[in-house]
């Protein structure tokens, strides 16, 4: 067992890694030596830009795949490519997520379908393909990004909260099932983090959320990335089936 955070020689796939917490995670894991594979959904240009940024900052070449994580066939194709090139996968970060806030009574069928397709189906698809690659080496770490909302709920987030609670259920069951293959599965439950999700919040709501954070400040994506690094590294080699809050002591 190594005694540091080194990810040298490890291959990591991070979904939703062109922005926010996913991008911060990509930079952090690369900084600690991992070969990172990026994923985005909307913009090939942004994906290429991120690859260039990693190359410039860390002098590494990385791959990127543009696909919707809720599309199982597209995910299969991505893992086929990963297998062909790297022959293995050591770390999966299921980060891609979407948010459709609506009050009870105003929730549309499409909101549910879209949110669960990305936040739940996407997690299961990727976890399944990743576990198959990891099981060949009897080693791996899967980190699912849930949310504080999935643990304690929030007004207007019945759909999002449901999907993020599902991520915790998926994590706990997968951890039990995959432990014998030495594949660890953990979740992170971020609180109020400075990403695109908080930008549309009205100032009053922003302040209300901020007031609920005991540490008195919004969290930065890099602080979530640091928690991912810990769970991805061998420092957490005996930790599985856990949900790690990264929320500055937030109470909703």
């Amino acid at each position, binding site marked *: 067992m190594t005694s540091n955070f080194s990810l040298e020689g490890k291959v990591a796939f991070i979904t939703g890694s062109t922005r926010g917490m996913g991008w911060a995670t990509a930079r952090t894991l690369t900084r600690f030596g991992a070969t990172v594979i990026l994923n985005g959904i909307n913009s090939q240009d942004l994906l290429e830009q991120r690859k260039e940024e990693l190359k410039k900052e860390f002098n590494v070449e990385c791959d990127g795949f543009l696909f919707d994580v809720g599309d*199982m066939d597209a995910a*299969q194709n991505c*893992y*086929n490519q990963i*297998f062909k090139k790297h022959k293995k996968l050591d770390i999966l970060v299921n980060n891609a997520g979407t948010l459709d806030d609506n009050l009870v009574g105003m929730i549309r069928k499409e909101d549910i379908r879209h949110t669960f397709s990305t936040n739940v189906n996407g997690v299961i698809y990727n976890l*399944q*393909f990743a576990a*198959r*690659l990891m*099981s*060949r080496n009897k080693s791996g770490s899967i980190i699912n990004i849930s949310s504080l909302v999935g643990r304690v709920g929030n007004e207007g987030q019945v759909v999002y909260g449901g999907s993020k609670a599902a991520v915790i259920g998926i994590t706990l069951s997968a951890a039990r099932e995959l432990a014998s293959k030495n594949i660890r599965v953990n979740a992170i439950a971020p609180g109020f983090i400075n990403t695109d999700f908080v930008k549309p919040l009205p100032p009053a709501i922003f302040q209300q959320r901020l007031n609920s954070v005991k540490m008195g400040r919004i969290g930065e994506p890099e602080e979530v990335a640091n928690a991912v690094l810990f769970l991805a590294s061998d420092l957490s080699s005996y930790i599985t089936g856990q949900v790690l809050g990264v929320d500055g002591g937030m109470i909703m």
Partner: protein
Amino acid sequence: MGNLEKLKKAFSESLEIEPETITDELSYSSGNWDSIAHLALIASIETEFDIMLASDDVIDMSSFQKAKEILGKYDIKF
């Protein structure tokens, strides 16, 4: 080692059975071939032939004969 021997080796090691006992009729739910062993078998086949099977093929691989048919789709001939 020929493809048939490779496939028998994968079955033999993952299901913990003797190669000479493997026939086309060997099927899921018989002997040691349960759901846990199935995933070990898939990993073993994928490693042996250096491929990654589609999810539907993983689920459909219900006998030794079926395994040969499915691997045919990956240009592995028997």
